[in-house]
């Protein structure tokens, strides 16, 4: 749907993007994360067509949109709905008036415009705020109106640049829900640029890590969490406390990542039963990645067949990340 190919951009000789390549599947949500100064904002501004890259291409449905001008550029902009960073609503217009702006630009006639604005207000759950001015809305409500505005002209791609940066966790949830609905109900492809890992946890199918102008990690969120080498995984999964004293009491200690209802609920007790080992949870916990429950536990095993038990867990589809005690490479 939208691909970014080898994008480079410098400002006064200082490179901000050093060849970024991304591929967002149609109807999926990609989170672009990374530390400050990694080039996230520059990437977002290039995709929003507010900044022209020095080289490389951005393709929407196969067409490179970086070199366009005039009417073609304005039409391309309607293909990409943008939720900009920070407050971006017209303060002299109502919520409904703000959502109508892209429709006015697209030349949609009045009656159709009103119908469409009504649908979008419904989508973001703010029908009762149609006549309110931005100053009468909370930060989260303003941001949801900004999302509705971005979706108004029926774009195929929705770009959100730090959509939750100024919000508290509770309102963050409401904005993310709206982004998720946009994908589910309108089928738009979503690209979220964020520094907030909870955004990735809640709505992203894929994640790309940007560092120093380059993509250093890229893949499906559920694949990355079971990848021992992934740095994203450790920030997405529940933390495990280090407790060496406790661990010395067990024959084997391992970190286990479990994905899905069945695995999270039943895998560990079954392993304990089957191999006659005593299995204790030493740390870790549950989280959700999108709709999928995911757990990371540190487990301590006691019993002769502890290694076999770990091997069986691994074979059953869980990622046994490392064996902290005992022979290396037994599992995983």
């Amino acid at each position, binding site marked *: 749907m939208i691909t970014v190919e080898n994008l480079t951009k410098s400002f006064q000789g200082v490179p901000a993007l050093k060849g970024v390549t991304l591929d967002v599947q149609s109807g999926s949500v990609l989170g672009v994360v990374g530390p400050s100064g990694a080039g996230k904002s520059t990437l977002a501004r290039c995709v929003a067509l*507010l900044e022209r890259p020095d080289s490389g291409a951005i393709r929407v449905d196969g067409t490179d949109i970086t070199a366009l001008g005039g009417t073609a550029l304005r039409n391309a902009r309607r293909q990409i709905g943008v939720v900009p960073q920070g407050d971006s609503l017209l303060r002299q217009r109502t919520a409904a008036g703000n959502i109508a702006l892209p429709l006015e630009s697209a030349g949609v006639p009045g009656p159709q415009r009103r119908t469409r604005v009504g649908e979008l207000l419904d989508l973001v759950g703010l029908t009762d705020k149609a006549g309110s001015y931005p100053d*009468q809305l909370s930060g989260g409500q303003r941001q949801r109106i900004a999302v509705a505005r971005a979706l108004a002209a029926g774009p195929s791609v929705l770009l959100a640049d730090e959509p939750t940066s100024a919000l508290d966790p509770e309102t963050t949830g409401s904005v993310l829900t709206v982004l998720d609905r946009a994908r589910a109900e309108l089928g738009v492809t979503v690209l979220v640029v964020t520094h907030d890992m909870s955004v990735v946890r809640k709505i992203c199918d894929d994640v790309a890590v940007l560092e120093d102008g380059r993509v250093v990690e890229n893949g499906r969120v559920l694949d990355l969490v079971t990848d021992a080498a992934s740095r994203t995984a450790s920030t997405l999964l529940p933390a495990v406390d280090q407790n060496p004293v406790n661990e010395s009491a067990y024959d084997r200690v391992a970190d286990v990542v479990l994905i899905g209802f069945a695995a999270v609920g039943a895998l560990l007790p079954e392993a304990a039963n089957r191999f006659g080992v005593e299995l204790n949870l030493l740390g870790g916990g549950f989280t959700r990645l999108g709709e999928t429950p995911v757990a990371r536990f540190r487990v301590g095993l006691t019993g002769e067949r502890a290694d076999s038990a770990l091997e069986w867990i691994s074979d059953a589809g869980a990622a046994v990340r490392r064996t902290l005690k005992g022979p290396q490479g037994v599992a995983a």
Partner: protein
Amino acid sequence: MRSATPWSDVVELLVEATGETLYMVGVSTLIATLFGIPVGVWLQLTSPGGLRPQPAVHRILGFVTDLGRSMPFIVLLVALTSVTRLIVGGSIGSSAVIVPLSVGAIPFVGRLVQNILSEVHVSVVEAAVTTGATTVKIVRSVLLRESLPALINAIGVTVIALIGYSAMAGVIGGGGLGDLAIREGYQRFNDRILWGTVAWLAVLTTVLQFGFTRAARASDRRRHAAI
């Protein structure tokens, strides 16, 4: 010993002079707004952070604007005599004053407007850009509409500044309140007319300022509701 002018005569003179002043200032403000807003928009669009940055155009336009603003009005009044004759067909009277008054006010309004438009936050403008809006659309629906309260205030400031300038209209026979105070009041030692005019000017200015402030507030949709 001359007896003082009866108050009824003073009022009659004030009414006539007020009509002249409001005519000169009203028409000039209209013209200055009509031409000054495009100048301000052009200045803002071509500025370094604007939608269509054009450093050379911006610098030349800025220079001409500031040159116009630096011209003392009394000089403009006499310097533009031939231009005035060309436009209004004469160089004497209230209508003749409108030409230099407007010419003097256009760069003034232009700068005011540019300053106001530059206050519209860049993220708001960029958001409109990403919707695929044309520059004309952005100027009208974003820059000017978002700035409307400030623009109304700026027109109020212009009206009051022009009332001050119009006091010099007497030089070319334009009449008006300033002329009344100077010619009938000051030069003929008529204190009733002099101070009566001054007091009336104070009232007029206050009322106009109040009106513009109210209009600006009425047009403002920013309400800081407690949420």
